[in-house]
């Protein structure tokens, strides 16, 4: 019979048309899809042609990296002077004290490496025991940092905070600001959401006061007025004053970030835990905060980024942070005139940290947000 010949036979799929796949189609879709699109592409290509080759020539091809003094750079002015950065690298990263005591330089290096070893697994998704790592970073690491960098224990010579500088100081200022401001900020955010009118009013006043004032005014206040606030005899050195100012400032911003998370929690969570007979603190610590903090991590990280950049303002009140170090080095007699290299290096270091943090927070935001949006 014929039925055996009528059997359906699947033909192999044909390839998609040549002009819809591969890089040619991609270029056509993304660069030349219409007249305006083509025109835009051409304009950009022309601009690239104008600016990128000269920059690469200056920064890489003609750049100087050999030697240990400015004679090399002065001989070849057509390229960047990375020799300057190479020679001053230790000062820029660790400050004057550690740069001038080579036998001590392991201290900041160890401090930075331990930080790196703690933070890298934290940002990787699948690390086990993340909670413990985070706890170690927030609780144990500061102790370790003080022991190693400040010294005074285990026979490590003391390096006073006044001698800290460069990236080390920038790091210390922002780290203190971040970890001290976090609990303060959480308390303030809870206060702002509180039902007690006076607590609420105080939190709002505190938050809005610090948020309304520029950090530089606060730093002036910390460096000029802090000694006046205390009975004579009580005094802090400059770095600690800046840390106090930065922490107070940062706590207000952290509070607002946490408040965003608190607002996103459904009322039912609170009501359900009340119905179970939990008190305020148990409700808050066991039910509300774990959910709220998780949601607010991206915005908390964003306040970290802002703080990390803002620590550069301490250079105005005379601390030798990374920015001031770069500026001073490029104004010193040895390297006078190589400002661009100094600023570019400092900017690049800041950029790496901030970009890293912002990509992490964007990744988290994408993970938390699953809406369908217009491209």
């Amino acid at each position, binding site marked *: 019979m014929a039925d055996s010949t009528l059997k359906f036979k699947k033909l192999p799929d044909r390839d998609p048309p040549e002009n819809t796949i591969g890089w040619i189609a991609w270029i056509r879709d*993304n*660069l030349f*899809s*219409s007249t305006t*699109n083509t025109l*835009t*592409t051409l304009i*950009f*290509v022309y601009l690239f042609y104008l600016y990128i080759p000269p920059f690469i020539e200056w920064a890489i091809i003609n750049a100087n990296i050999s030697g240990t003094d400015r004679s090399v750079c002065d001989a070849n002015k057509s390229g960047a002077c990375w020799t300057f950065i190479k020679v001053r690298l230790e000062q820029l990263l660790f400050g004057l004290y550690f740069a001038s005591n080579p036998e001590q330089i392991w201290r900041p290096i160890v401090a930075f490496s331990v930080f790196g070893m703690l933070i890298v697994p934290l940002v990787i998704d699948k690390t086990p025991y993340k909670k413990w790592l985070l706890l170690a970073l927030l609780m144990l690491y500061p102790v370790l940092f003080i022991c190693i960098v400040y010294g005074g224990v285990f026979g490590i010579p003391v390096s006073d905070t006044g001698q800290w500088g460069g990236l080390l100081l920038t790091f210390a200022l922002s780290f203190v600001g971040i970890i001290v401001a976090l609990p303060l900020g959480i308390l303030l955010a809870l206060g702002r959401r509180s*039902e*007690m*009118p*006076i*607590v609420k009013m*105080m939190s709002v006043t505190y938050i*809005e*006061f610090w*948020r*309304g*004032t*520029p950090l*530089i*005014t606060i730093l*002036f*206040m910390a460096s*000029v*007025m802090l*000694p*006046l*606030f*205390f*009975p*004579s005899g009580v005094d802090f050195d400059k770095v600690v004053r800046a840390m106090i100012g930065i922490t107070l400032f940062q706590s207000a911003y952290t509070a607002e970030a946490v408040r965003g998370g608190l607002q996103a929690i459904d009322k039912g969570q609170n009501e359900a835990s009340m119905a179970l007979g939990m008190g305020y603190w148990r409700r808050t610590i066991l039910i509300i905060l774990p959910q709220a903090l998780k949601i607010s991590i991206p915005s908390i990280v964003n306040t970290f*980024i802002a703080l990390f*950049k*803002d620590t*550069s*303002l301490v*250079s*105005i009140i005379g601390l030798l942070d990374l*920015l001031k170090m770069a*500026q001073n080095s490029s104004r010193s007699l040895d390297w006078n005139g190589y*400002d*661009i290299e*100094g*600023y*570019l290096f*400092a*900017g690049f270091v*800041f*950029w790496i940290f*901030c*970009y890293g943090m*912002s990509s992490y927070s964007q990744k988290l935001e994408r993970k938390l947000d699953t*809406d*369908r*949006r*217009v*491209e």
Partner: protein
Amino acid sequence: MKSTKIPLHRNPKLRSFALQASLLLLVAHALFSVYQTTVSNLEARGIKTSTSFFDEVAPFKVGYSPFLEFKLGETTYIEVFFIGVLNTLLVAVLGILAATFLGFFIGVMRTSQNWLASKCALFYVETFRNMPLLLQIMFWNFAIFLAFLPPPKQSIEMGLFFLNSRGLHTPIPVIQNHLLSTIWFGFIFASFVGAFVFATWSKKRFESTGKSLPVFLISVSFIIAVSYISFVILGSPLGIDIPVLGKFNFKGGGQLPLPLFSLWFALTIYTSAFIAENVRAGISSISKGQVEAARSIGLTRAQMVKMIILPQALRVVIPPTISQYLNLTKNSSLAIAVGFEEVVAVWANISLNQTGQALIIIAMTIVFYECCSLFTSFILNIYNKRVQITER
């Protein structure tokens, strides 16, 4: 029935009252004792906290004060404060205008179909957003402008603007006849009122009949026509003062000295990166369904942008952008690094060092910024109330 009485220490009302009262007492006590210690500490250093120094003559020079006249040996401290405030407001306004235009441009470029344009905008945003503003200000001022801008003789010409190592020279309008120029401003105001009335009328007509007019185009051409015609009829009551190259420097016109120019430049670039990000977020916050629905009811592209996309996108874009304006104003205090004379530099720094009146001076500076901040949140609240989606 046995009534279980709540013990006193477990009564929530009483507990909350006791807690708040003790907190209030504690904070009030702390603040008061800090105030007392501060005043007595200042007195121990020979500084009596009072506002009498306001009327003393300031012994230093303020180089840039376009709105109030500065005379060394006559200008008092309180006038220096106002000069500083006005300079801050000047750079804030200039920065806000420029950053808004640049930010919208970059933000729209970021959502462009063109891959190169979109990636360039991304590069711009990620570069300038992730570096400290202070570093950028110093970079532009010291490493680029001071090092590479030509002396006045070889100024870079941009139309009527001249850029050189002293700063940017701009043309400024000059009032030639007071009465006539007032009348002219009156005409412009009247044309704005006319355009507003027209817009209201055409909106009403659209709602009742469905017929629409190109309102924006008509209003703009109406305002331009009225102001131009009245300007000619009144015989040009305003003139332009163009900067002219003298023997050593430019004369006439307005001037943005180099510190102000670099500050403005850096603030604009830094803030525009943030505004661009807001604009991108606003555009991509519109869900696909909105666009598809607009297409399916047959709206043209222009209608869709005007009636569906813009109202919803602006709702997302404007609030964070207004906060950016406040940030820009606060960030202008970094001028101190390049020596532009705004309020922190002349008041919280120089005047404070001269008089030692730390308490009053810092308080006034903070109050000024708090006023800016309160004003911003006032505007934001009004806006948020207006655009709030009315739900059931």
